[in-house]
């Protein structure tokens, strides 16, 4: 069974004036059907305002679809009685680490989710320890979140979600406010969870280099899913990506341009090593 599945999902933000008259409608997600299998690493790309965050929030049942349906592990998000189960199944990490850390000590924050679920104290401690170890933040368990770097804070946020033992984590631009080192820390942690723990990952990002290792990539534009495929497939369509106002990793672009100039390079080169190897073959 799919862990996340949407069918003809549409979400509209409706702005109303004081008298409750509809002032304007923004269709943020428009007729999206997708399905994610357990254990997959999915990346979602798209420029600002393309509806990525809105899509993510419908998965966590923070927003409810205007039309269509979202199922999380078989549970319909429209059904109120599923609400808490859905939130425990699909955890969510947001962009700004400062605005999602609730506790004043790292371990207390990680314990927040299980506390809400009514998990017994000893079990919470176990989970907190486990989750912090998974993201490599166990040594900081007694620290104040205010003293951590952005990357560390974001890993604490991830641990906070992990402690709820979700099957799936949705990360909405978790690295947007981080420096390159912090970004790498977070992305590595997420990949590790995906591989070692088999947790399904849905990663929303602007950074092309973060999706290179994803299993599948969705590209969104004005609420639609415009492209879908493996990173290699996506990156071989450089012109289309550019039309959607997205850039490709530098290596891919260089290879693409070289290919245009007549070198016999394969499509969708993703890493420098690959490029070097293919160039060697060319000679």
């Amino acid at each position: 069974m799919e862990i996340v599945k949407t069918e003809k999902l549409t979400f509209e933000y409706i702005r109303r004036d004081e008298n409750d008259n509809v002032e304007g409608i923004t269709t943020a997600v428009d007729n999206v059907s997708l399905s994610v299998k357990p254990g997959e690493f999915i990346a979602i790309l798209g420029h600002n305002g393309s509806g990525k965050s809105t899509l993510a929030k419908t998965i966590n049942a923070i927003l409810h679809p205007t039309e269509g349906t979202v199922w999380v592990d078989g549970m319909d998000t429209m059904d109120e009685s599923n609400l808490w189960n859905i939130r425990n199944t699909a955890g969510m990490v947001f962009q700004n680490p400062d605005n999602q850390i609730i506790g004043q000590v790292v371990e207390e924050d990680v314990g927040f989710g299980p506390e809400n679920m009514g998990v017994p104290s000893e079990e919470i401690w176990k989970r907190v320890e486990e989750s912090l170890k998974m993201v490599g933040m166990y040594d900081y368990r007694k620290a104040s979140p205010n003293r951590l770097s952005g990357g560390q804070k974001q890993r604490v946020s991830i641990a906070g979600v992990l402690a709820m033992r979700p099957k799936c984590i949705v990360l909405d631009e978790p690295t947007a406010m981080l420096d390159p080192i912090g970004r790498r820390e977070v992305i590595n942690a997420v990949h590790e969870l995906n591989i070692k723990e088999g947790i399904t990952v849905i990663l929303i990002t602007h950074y092309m280099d973060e999706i290179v290792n994803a299993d599948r990539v969705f590209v969104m534009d004005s609420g639609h899913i415009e492209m879908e495929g493996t990173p290699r497939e996506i990156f071989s369509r450089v012109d289309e990506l550019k039309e959607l106002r997205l850039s490709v990793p530098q290596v891919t672009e260089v290879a693409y341009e070289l290919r245009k100039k007549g070198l016999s390079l394969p499509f969708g080169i993703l890493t420098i090593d690959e490029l070097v190897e293919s160039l060697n073959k060319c000679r």
Partner: protein
Amino acid sequence: MGTLIFLVSLFITKNYIGYIPALIFLAAVVKISKVPFKFIVKGMKAIVFLLSLSVLCNLFLTPGEPLVSFWKLSISREGIKTAVFMAIRLTFLIIGSSIMTLTTTPNQLTDGLEKGLGFMKVIKVPVHEIAMMMSIALRFIPILTEETDKIMKAQMARGADFESGNIIKKIKSLIPLLVPLFISAFRRANDLAMAMEARGYRGGDGRTKMKPLKYHGNDAVAYIILLLYLAVIIALRVLIK
């Protein structure tokens, strides 16, 4: 919570006699809390400056019959009295609150409040929510302070002037600081609410605690001492007008 009562009680007392039970109480608390004496002294050092400043002010500025006077300054009997009085009060205040901050994390504090005031739930006071609000406020104070600093610098770079002018002008100049600060605070609040919901927060019911507050024998003793102390203070205040 005991600290709060203690601090209030310090302000109730108006004369020296009132400090004797306060001293005994403080000594008892220090003993129970097992905070090394060194720490307390260390904490005191930091405020010596403040303490001496207030002593000096009281010393010179309290009107009364002058005892010694040189140049324009004079020390009066009343001055000495209030100065010593203030010094003791401040010292107690600081020892009292530093014991609290040394022994209690803010979370324990709010947990304690939640539990201590739990009986008020019966009359529909949202104790859990209040405690939650307090702990979130505590968490966001440093973040908002930092943000204030940032906005201030940003506005100064645009030519805002926070320093010159009279009071009215200064208050007016705060507007470009406060407006963005409030907007950002609201946005943060919105984000935080969403994050809490995403992590399954649904109020106090059905929630467990990672660090449940357990009352030990010591705590019971502390409560008894606190009650005794309160009784003595109130009695003193009533008896000696």
